[in-house]
């Protein structure tokens, strides 16, 4: 009894310290800051009202939410066929190799991966030079710093976190169910709609939560690939805290972002009929 309690403490303490010191305590401080005036230090709602009164703030906010959702859906749409191919079509050894190919890019840091894209896409980059050499372009075009590139970059950097859980659930799908549906007259699209996607929903939702949170909180990729036009909400927080030293405003923005991600994840779970307990399992 005594030793099991000691064992519990031994494992629980680091978790408690980690959560307490790095998550709860800073958030309590940020919560206090967000309701504090940057001028006189008194209690105020002005940090939050600034968000609603300044269109650039909430437009950026809505834009970030919409694009993060879009990134999540694109990642789902790509992960399903990839996972299907790896688990159902490829032979066992080839499946392991393909999984490795999905993993390899994640052995290098996000920064290096994004620079890889920049080397490919910039005006003097590989793709432009190839197209010019092939005579398809007269002068280089700028492929970086637009929304399409930014979304593509975000999908790329978060793809693995969708593919892994989807492979997990797809692997558990009995091939006989697919064959049975086919035998009972289902077309290929009907099989995807009625059998494969419903079966993969827990994996899609847990992957979706991770990808959505990664995209929403991403700073590097929108900043480097979207440039000045990226208008990502994390940049607003960065600007407030680092450029204007306005910790109070930054804290308020941080809390709004936290609220937003919680709200959208809650909505996602409601719509798909999943419970958080099942999804994190």
């Amino acid at each position, binding site marked *: 009894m005594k030793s099991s309690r000691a064992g519990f403490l031994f494992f629980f303490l680091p978790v408690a310290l980690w959560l307490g010191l790095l998550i709860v305590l800073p958030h309590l401080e940020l919560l206090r800051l967000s309701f504090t005036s940057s001028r006189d230090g008194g209690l105020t709602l002005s940090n939050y009202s600034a968000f609603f009164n300044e269109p650039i703030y909430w437009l950026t906010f809505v834009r970030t939410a919409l694009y993060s959702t879009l990134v999540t859906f694109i990642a789902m749409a790509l992960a399903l066929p990839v996972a299907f191919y790896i688990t159902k079509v490829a032979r066992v050894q080839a499946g392991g190799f393909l999984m490795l190919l999905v993993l390899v890019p994640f052995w290098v840091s996000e920064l290096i991966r994004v620079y890889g894209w920049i080397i490919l896409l910039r005006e003097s980059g590989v793709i432009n030079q190839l197209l010019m050499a092939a005579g398809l372009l007269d002068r280089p075009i700028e492929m970086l710093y637009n929304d399409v590139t930014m979304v593509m970059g975000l999908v790329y950097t978060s793809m693995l976190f969708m593919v892994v859980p989807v492979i997990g659930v797809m692997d558990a799908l*009995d091939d*006989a169910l697919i064959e049975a549906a086919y*035998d009972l*007259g*289902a077309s290929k699209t009907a099989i995807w709609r009625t*059998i494969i996607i419903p079966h993969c929903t827990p994996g899609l939702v847990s992957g979706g939560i991770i990808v959505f949170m990664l995209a929403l909180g991403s700073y590097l990729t929108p900043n480097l690939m979207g440039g000045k036009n990226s208008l990502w909400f994390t940049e607003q927080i960065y600007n407030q805290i680092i450029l204007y030293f306005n910790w109070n405003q930054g804290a308020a923005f941080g809390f709004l972002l936290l609220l937003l991600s919680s709200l959208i994840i809650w909505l996602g779970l409601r719509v798909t009929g999943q419970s958080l307990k099942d999804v994190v399992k």
Partner: protein
Amino acid sequence: MRNALSVQNLVKRFGSFTAVNDVSFDVEDGKFFSILGPSGCGKTTLLRMIAGFYRQDSGRILLNGQDMDGVAPNRRPVNLVFQNLALFPMMNVFENVAFGLRRRGEKGPAVEAKVRDMLERVGLPESGKKEIGQLSGGQKQRIAIARCLVLEPAVLLLDEPLGALDAKLREHMKVELKALQSKVGTTFVYITHDQSEAMVMSDRVAVMNNGVFEQIGSPQELYHSPRSSFVAQFVGANNKLPVTLSGGATPMASYARWSGLRTTAPAAGFSEGEPHDLFIRPESMVINPPEDSGFNILPVTVKAILFDGGNSRLLVSPSGTEDELTVALPQTRQYDHIRARDEIRVGWDPSASLCFRRSEWKLYDEE
């Protein structure tokens, strides 16, 4: 009567291995047809070709007279009951049964009426709202069949669906499946490695071995007049004695130190001295027959009494040999005095024995 299914010279190879080798058969409309064979004999491959999951290398499959070559599984008028049943766990019982109807584009009250009617037919009228996990083994079985029958297929294919059930339930389902088949009148093609399942339920049985059909016939024909040594051993229980033959039209068999055992000549003819096997069913063996009965008689030692109620047998060994024979032991109390290690005589009517040239095969995998 017209044929619901007609298979003509079907061949399927996997690399250099021929899984199905020139198989032909017809199944009349409304019949219960079984394909019986040991695992790895090619019966599942054959079934998957009929369902459309494999494409044959040559030969034809006709369903209701129509060539199925190039027709995808979802467009064929056959449905398959899978070995593990493959019920959809993401849907309830009603939606499982309605699945095929909905894929055909049927909607609303028509679907509901058909599903309700089918659930009633399989004896589970109240189970529509249940989830798959709430069903017992036997109920899952019936839903899997209902899900196919509701589509009114030309042929229902069943891939050893009783394999996963425990022994008692399997006995029960055999009877029930046969009753269901005669009630709905759909043509059933059933594959199994269990000869008892095939015998009890089928109108006709094909015995398959190494990719070919050894014999097609009614269960009675297969039992009483097997045409190959494989069928003799695979269908029903049989004793096998290694013998050599001599003589002409009414040959004599020699076994161990006994010669002059009368037997029937192999249908394929024989040459003297060639190794043959003599088959005698346990139930054709008589314990201590009268000397003047005209039976072949061997003195044997009782090795064990295998009591199994009405299916009790004696395990005996012809004196001076290591061979083992099983002999039916009628539970009429007449043989109660027999004990292990007793010396007795067993005999059989020569016309009840069959002789085939020796050939080797595997009856089961030793896993």
